[in-house]
């Protein structure tokens, strides 16, 4: 504790020296002259963190496995970050060089984060659509003569197998194939669910905003009731009921899951659509349209919806991620996508035990993290793209 305090004080001294040196070296340039101490301190802390990261990375590359294992995940994260950044940069270069005038113009104004997002979403889409062609094995296929629990990495010295670069799971299925099929199952279902949630929530939200009165009260209070119940527990409850109905009615359980999550999530969309809609319906152009005698359909879809796209789009990105995580969570709990269908949530649950090996056999612990990483990457990518779209659309308004 005392050492930490001394360390902070040391940083403060360095920050002061840094600012002083900057002032002296540049002959009191306005930037250094008006720099507050907090800013200087921030620079120094940032530099210290960078230095530590560089040191940790070198530790991770150490030949001594005991030291290297400690920093294994940090090393992977740093390398992954750099690779992603380079990939995004190259993708943007490519986008600027080829394509139509419109797409080139789009790529020219694209930040690196957005290009990473677009690239990732494209890769996921290709994987999901062509899963059957791309995956080396079937998602349910237990490959004869292959051991279970092969460690990812493909290095025989560490228990891997070059034929299965991501290893095999607890009953000997290829993890790479299951990840690719998982994209199809999880992402496809999440996308359908989010669309449905938006259709429901958006329509009712705008209706409530436009008509107001008792309809607004009725819908809003109904939504309040639904929102009062913790959503995951509510979903679990409904899924349990559905799992009884599904075999009886012959409708697949997945359809029930899509409906249940869509209805629960549409309550959030409803609230947003209603709030945004209420701000729009007081505008004079809506009054002008009403006075013209326009019908409800024209009001909602031509006058209100185009002006609500920006916040709804932002919500879509966020909601997609939440839906996706809910499906993964339900699958993790065993009521979502049912085995033997590959699903990232289920995969995390099934391989979760390996995380305990993180300290001494980091490669083995990677197995559950692959599926978790796939979820995280997509979530981040979607949000990057939505951020960028929002920035663009708000810039247009100015």
């Amino acid at each position, binding site marked *: 504790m005392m050492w930490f305090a001394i360390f902070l004080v040391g940083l403060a001294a360095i920050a002061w020296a840094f600012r002083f040196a900057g002032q002296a070296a540049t002959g009191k340039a*306005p930037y250094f*002259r*008006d720099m507050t101490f907090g800013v200087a301190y921030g620079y120094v802390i940032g530099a210290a963190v960078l230095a530590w990261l560089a040191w940790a990375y070198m530790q991770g590359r150490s030949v001594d496995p005991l030291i290297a294992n400690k920093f294994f995940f940090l090393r992977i994260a740093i390398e992954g970050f750099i690779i992603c950044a380079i990939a995004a940069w190259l993708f943007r270069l490519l986008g600027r060089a080829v394509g139509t005038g419109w797409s080139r113009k789009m790529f020219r104004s694209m930040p690196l984060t957005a290009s990473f997002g677009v690239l990732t979403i494209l890769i996921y889409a290709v994987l999901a659509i062509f899963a059957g062609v791309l995956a080396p094995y079937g998602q349910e296929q237990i490959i004869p003569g292959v051991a279970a629990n092969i460690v990812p990495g493909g290095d025989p010295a560490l228990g891997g197998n070059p034929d299965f670069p991501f290893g095999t799971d607890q009953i000997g299925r290829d993890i790479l194939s299951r990840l690719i099929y998982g994209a199809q199952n999880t992402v496809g279902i999440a996308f359908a669910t989010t669309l449905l949630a938006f259709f429901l929530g958006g329509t009712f939200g705008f209706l409530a905003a436009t008509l107001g009165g008792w309809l607004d009260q009725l819908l809003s209070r109904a939504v309040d009731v639904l929102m009062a119940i913790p959503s995951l527990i509510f979903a679990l409850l409904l899924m349990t009921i559905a799992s009884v109905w599904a075999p009886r009615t012959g409708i697949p359980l997945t359809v029930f899951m899509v409906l249940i999550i869509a209805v629960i999530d549409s309550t959030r969309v409803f609230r947003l659509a209603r709030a945004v809609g209420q701000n729009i319906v007081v*505008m*004079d*152009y809506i*009054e*002008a349209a*009403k*006075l*013209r*005698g*326009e019908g409800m359909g024209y009001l909602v879809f*031509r*006058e209100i919806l*185009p*002006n609500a796209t920006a916040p709804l789009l932002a919500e879509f990105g966020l909601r997609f991620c939440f839906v996706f995580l809910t499906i993964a969570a339900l699958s993790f709990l065993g009521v979502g996508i049912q085995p033997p269908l590959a699903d990232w949530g289920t995969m995390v649950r099934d391989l979760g035990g390996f995380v305990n090996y993180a300290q001494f056999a980091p490669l083995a612990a990677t197995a559950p993290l692959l599926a978790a990483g796939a979820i995280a990457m997509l979530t981040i990518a979607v949000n990057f793209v939505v951020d960028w779209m929002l920035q663009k659309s708000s810039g*247009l*308004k*100015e």
Partner: protein
Amino acid sequence: MTEPLLKMRGVKLEGRSDEVWSPIINGIDLTLMRGEVLGLIGESGAGKSTLGLAAMGYTRDGVRINAGTVEFDGIDLLAASAATKRNLLGKRIAYVAQSAAASFNPAHRLMDQHVEGPVQHGVMSRTESESDAIELYRKLRLPDPEQIGFRYPHQVSGGQLQRAMTAMAMSCRPDLIIFDEPTTALDVTTQIEVLASIRDIVEQFNTAAIYITHDLAVVAQMADRIKVLLKGDEVETADTRTMLAAPTQEYTKSLWAVRSFQRPRKPAVIVGAVPVISVQSVDARYGTTPVLHDVSFDLHEGRTVAVVGESGSGKSTAARCIAGLLPPAAGQILLDGQVLPPDYRKRSKDQLRQVQMIYQMADTALNPRMSVGRIIARPVQFYLGLTGAVKRKRVDQLLEQIEMEPTEYYNRLPSELSGGQKQRIGIARALAAEPKFIICDEVTSALDQLVAEGILRLLAKLQDDLHLSYMFITHDLATVRAIADEVVVMKDGRVVERGPKDVMFKPPHDPYTELLLSSVPEMDPDWLTNLLAERGVDDIGGAAVDKM
């Protein structure tokens, strides 16, 4: 000759939009002596406010000073360190913004915000500053100066808030105050109170001021010298009296000429003709609060009735009743002798078509996501059933009628138009329905004088061509003079006086009409002084108390 207080030399400012820096101010010199008031006038977009802020060494985000010097009392503001500027701004240079309502923090009392400057700058202790604030409130003739500081911003009226802001700017007794359109958002009657208080207090403390406005008549009352700006360039600078008497530049002359527009008189209405719109003893309420009492007037084909009154007088409510947005509690409205259903939802498509509306804020009256062509095409298609090439032809024709080039503007979005152009689109949308009667709700009050005049001329021309009838809601009597045939004066939801324009503008008047008429600033530098002498200064303070 003493040293000037503020010296700006060759100041150039650039603004950033779409990744490109474009010039806002192209090299302007400005000199201000101690105790002198300089008026800065020009249309919106002329760079007045940007220049005013640059005089404090400050720029908004996305604006930069790329040449020139700004020297305040020998201190180079552009090279000064943040610490030096912190000592100057608020203490020796103060700023009064256009909208006091938006500039006060609604979560704190006026007094807490007032004392912040003096206490922070170490000029006064809190108690000293508080008693000083009360003194300033008294000097600015705010009602109940002892107590008003302990109210929140939303508890005082707009004019009072503007004066409280002036008091706040005065709190450190600065050498220079920059007033950025302090009265633009106020009614004429309130404007006088604020103008008189600002002028007095600036004189009293011998404070130098830059007074930014687009209203010539206002600047004529306030300034010792006037500087005219046009698109970032100086047009001319001269003493107020010289400038008013003999402007040398064409542009300045055109600004002066704006108020000269006046329609020729129309022949009298044929006796017994059926009025296009007849409002018959209409009462209206918001909830249980009555807002209109026994409002009646008639409007004949091809004529304009101007409804005048300050905000809250019920002018817009009357329009909402006619449009059917607020069904009247009593009375009825006749269109061509036929009773209109009170609720617009019960009116037939043809009845809706006949009554169109043009709004004050063109920004909110046009859907920002629809192109100009689609906005105008919608009523054409909706009411007249035209589609395809015929519809397009009609839209082009309408755009030509409002003097906008169809090929250039058809695909533009409202955000790509200027304020005046947006208002023209609003007019075209109303015209597209081929109505008989158009309600114009303060259509020119958000526009610069030159642009507003263009809109008024256009409306007058359209009226002659298409025999339209207008109900013109306004608080600006210059507009009334320009366009109206008949005038209805409203106050507190009642019609105070009504009649043909010629009669209304000649005495004798109802006392309220008299107050309104005399409150319109005139282009005479002595107008305010004379008016105050006529009314008696106390009267202004008294009027403020009445409004509480």
